[in-house]
């Protein structure tokens, strides 16, 4: 929970572009994000916001046309003698880092698992590739990994297609944990699953995290899930981080207009029915981003000053209850307690959408 102490993974001024004939796409633009030991950081963003680019870029898993154009990624694991910059690592160092230190759970377990190998062989493969153990030890380890994620040992001989979607995702988690990594990056690990299974798996992830002590970077488009799961949340939009704060602060005192909009975008199941507004419009084209704040075209609070705004994250200021210096926002104009601007002008501009949204919730 605390943002104090040494981060295990420290991403600084990290930028990635995708080269394309029509111009560079700035998928990650000077991103700063730290992950502390044992912490769950949620990275929330829409598709195309650059959240996966950021996470894969941090492990240097991107291929051309993606190009890392700047920044540093400092990894300070317990097993390393000194912190190292992942962006400066040689291939053999990278090989030792990946999986052993930083593991990834991918979204689509069916595609990430090898369809012609059974569960045991895939687990043993990973163990042999990264740990100096005998064959028998590897087999025993594979079995105990399944215990860890609550799959009966009888399933060791099953092939991926014989498992349910939830079990496949559990196998993926078991594989990621095979080498006792310090950081686990989870890229929408439960998006393809039903809510009941999703909940089961999330509860299990939290339990494993508490037992084994790894840190999680959890990528999802579902902010409502992160509010419950994450210690801290980073909100990404158009390749930039717009706000970082604890889950509680993001929920109670969202500072950035985009975060505010997101929080009013999903229907809640419990409590009184809230007014839902949604966010009209769509994200900008990253080939030719508008000057200043990328959210400006969709922002209710926007002014002319926003076209030349400095997008660096600054501490959310002037709110009595928010004493956390680590709650930061990219918007210097809007604070958590800024009243929403009059809807009338915007509604007329946006056509009937806003009216319909109001009708829907009335």
């Amino acid at each position, binding site marked *: 929970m605390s943002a104090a102490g040494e981060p295990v993974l420290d991403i600084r001024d990290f930028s990635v572009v995708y080269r394309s004939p029509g111009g560079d796409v700035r998928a990650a633009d000077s991103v700063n994000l730290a992950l502390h030991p044992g912490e769950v950081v949620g990275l929330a963003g829409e598709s195309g916001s650059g959240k996966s680019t950021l996470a894969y870029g941090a492990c240097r898993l991107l291929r051309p046309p993606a190009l890392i154009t700047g920044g540093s990624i400092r990894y300070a694991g317990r097993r390393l003698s000194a912190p190292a910059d992942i962006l400066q690592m040689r291939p053999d160092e990278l090989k030792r880092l990946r999986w052993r230190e930083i593991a990834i759970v991918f979204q689509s377990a069916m595609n990430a698992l090898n369809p012609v190998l059974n569960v045991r062989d895939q687990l043993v493969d990973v163990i042999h590739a990264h740990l100096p153990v005998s064959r028998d030890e590897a087999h025993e380890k594979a079995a105990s990994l399944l215990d860890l994620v609550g799959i009966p040992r009888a399933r060791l001989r099953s092939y991926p297609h014989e498992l349910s979607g939830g079990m496949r995702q559990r196998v993926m988690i078991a594989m990621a944990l095979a080498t006792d990594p310090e950081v686990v990056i989870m890229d929408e690990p439960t998006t393809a699953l039903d809510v*009941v299974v999703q909940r089961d798996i999330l509860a299990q992830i*939290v339990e494993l995290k508490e037992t084994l002590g790894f840190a999680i970077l959890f990528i999802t488009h579902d902010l409502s899930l992160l509010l419950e799961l994450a210690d801290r949340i980073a909100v990404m939009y158009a390749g930039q981080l717009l706000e970082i704060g604890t889950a509680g602060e993001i929920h109670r005192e969202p500072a950035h207009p985009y975060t505010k909009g997101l929080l009013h975008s999903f229907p809640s199941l419990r409590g009184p029915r809230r007014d839902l507004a949604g966010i009209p419009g769509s994200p900008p084209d990253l080939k030719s981003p508008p000057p200043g704040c990328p959210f400006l075209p969709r922002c209710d609070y926007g002014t002319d000053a926003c076209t030349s705004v400095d997008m660096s994250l600054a501490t959310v200021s002037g709110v009595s209850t928010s004493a956390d210096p680590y709650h930061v926002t990219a918007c210097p104009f809007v604070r958590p307690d800024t009243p929403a601007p009059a809807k009338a002008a915007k509604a007329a501009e946006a056509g009937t959408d806003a009216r*319909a949204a109001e009708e829907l919730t009335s």
Partner: protein
Amino acid sequence: MSTMKGAGEVGGAQVQPAPADDGAPAMEAVALSKDFRLGRGNILRAVRDVGLSLYRGKVIALVGESGSGKSTVARLLAGQEQPTSGTIRLDGQPVDLSGHRAFRRHKSEVQLVFQDPFASLNPVHTVSYHLERPIRLHQAGKSKAEVAKEVEALLEQVRLTPAGQFSGKYPHELSGGQRQRVSFARALAAEPSVLLADEPVSMLDVSIRLEMLSLLDDLRKRFRLALLYITHDIASARYFADEVLVMYGGQIVERGPAEELTQRPAHPYTQLLVSSAPDPDNLGSTLRSGTGIKITSNGARPGEAGIPAAGCLFAPRCPLADDHCRAEYPQLLQVSPARSAACWRLDIAAGELTGPQEPQTHP
């Protein structure tokens, strides 16, 4: 809400729209079942004995996990699958799909919107082609100029404006939300009375979903559509639907007014669904402390538990299941005037809701 008696009174083919809140259902399914043969004598009972009524201007949400049979219900209603047993009525008339003409007539009244707007639009055709075709098919005798005008009107209805800018575009030139708007416009081109929307917003980003749902709601009001909203997201059903039907294993296990059902679920499965949904207002939740969920799946994981051959379909995962549940299949029983649930243990599952239990008049 719906009774079979009411439907019988509406003979004749006069399609004059009835008032939204009362009157006969625009579409009705009675004891609808669909079995799929899986080979080796195995049969998958995808839909069991489903009854539902769609009224013009009303939204019914069909909520369930993947594999619960909710999409099969939509395909049966749309006439894409033949039911194994049961009846579908459109404006009080039993649906007849025996001929090409009858099938087309059914299509012009009942339209489907699919989940994935990338897969449901043809990548080699423009937006206007997608809209002209249904107009020509279902509104025969229109001149070229009239069709073009209609395309423009449709694009404006789904707020793809200026229409001229969109009509010549190909699907890959549109965003996910814009593509789904084209799907809506295509469904409206047939001037249907019933719209079956199968997970219409699940593929879209969170910030766009709400806008699309309000568009759908707006269209429902403007055209007085009878709307079936199929979703796995029970929270959106709470905000969007008038009535919610919860499906499990092909059976409707609970039905009731949206707000009431989501706030006080009666069936143990609905309770599990509700307690599994992410709850942003529940910081420091059961999830964070890692203590698990209130109603557990009783050790059995979904998918492994399977659907039992006898008794209640949910029994293998239900914490309340007893021998009676494992032996006898529960029918929908009335819980309160507007609500019913298929559960033998309602006295415990929904103690405060249950009045005297008596079988309902409709399936």
